[in-house]
């Protein structure tokens, strides 16, 4: 009986303890702080990701360009044999003789 009473008394004392009246404000401030940090991180993550993609693309193009070898001659002759000796003239002559 005595033990029961002592336990009840201790519990009553502990139940009478009240939390800091600013506890809710403290929690709200912490939640708000965490939200701001998270949104900042998200913006930075997005910017970093975009910058990384751009850098990788630029690097790829640069490396690709540095390895290009020119396989075509600088001066190329384009000779059309038919223009050198136009056989059509001879054909035309033969036709004339035949007529």
């Amino acid at each position, binding site marked *: 009986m005595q033990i029961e009473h002592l336990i009840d008394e201790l*519990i009553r004392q502990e*139940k009478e303890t009240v939390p800091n009246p600013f506890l*809710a404000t403290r929690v*709200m401030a912490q939640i708000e702080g965490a939200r701001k940090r998270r949104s900042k991180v998200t913006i930075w993550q997005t910017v970093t990701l975009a910058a990384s993609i751009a850098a990788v693309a630029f690097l790829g193009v640069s490396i690709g360009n540095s390895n290009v070898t020119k396989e075509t001659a600088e001066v190329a002759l384009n000779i059309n044999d038919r223009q050198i000796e136009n056989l059509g003239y001879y054909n035309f002559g033969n036709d004339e003789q035949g007529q």
Partner: protein
Amino acid sequence: MTDEQLIREITADNNAAFKTLMERYQLQVFRTAMGFVHTKEDAEDLTQEIFIRVYQSLHTFQGGSEFSTWIYRITVNMSLNFVRSNIKKRLLQSLEALFTLSSEDKNPLEELESDERDRRIRRAIDSLPEKQRMAFILSRYEELPQKKIATVMNRSEGAVEQLLQRAKENLKKKLSSTVGK
């Protein structure tokens, strides 16, 4: 505003609604935490952690049980985790409390005796098996009916009654030799 309406507001990014919800439940969370940690500072820290967790996981609340049941479950689980991870700190605190005694209406010897008695009772409560401790704290600190405790603990009412009975017997056994003589 009902809890459900407040939750809808919070999920729609209305932080003022969360403050209202917190003010509604902070005393019950704090009292339950007190039952586990016994000091105001720790109970406040724990209450803070609990509400941050509630805020973060509010979107997982399906409404299958009452919101108060859900928040009691979080409180009890987080309190047990807090106690497990702060065993050394709490031991130091109880030793510190022994050496920093002050009271106006008791002489030093009486005060020493009463503090020692309280410390023993707290230690006896803390040494109860987890399920018994949960049932005991919800019943004595929160004065919840057995039906509600059974819902929080996912047990039958009969099982809760048994846990409470065992907790009472264990406390008597642990304290009979040292307290209340």
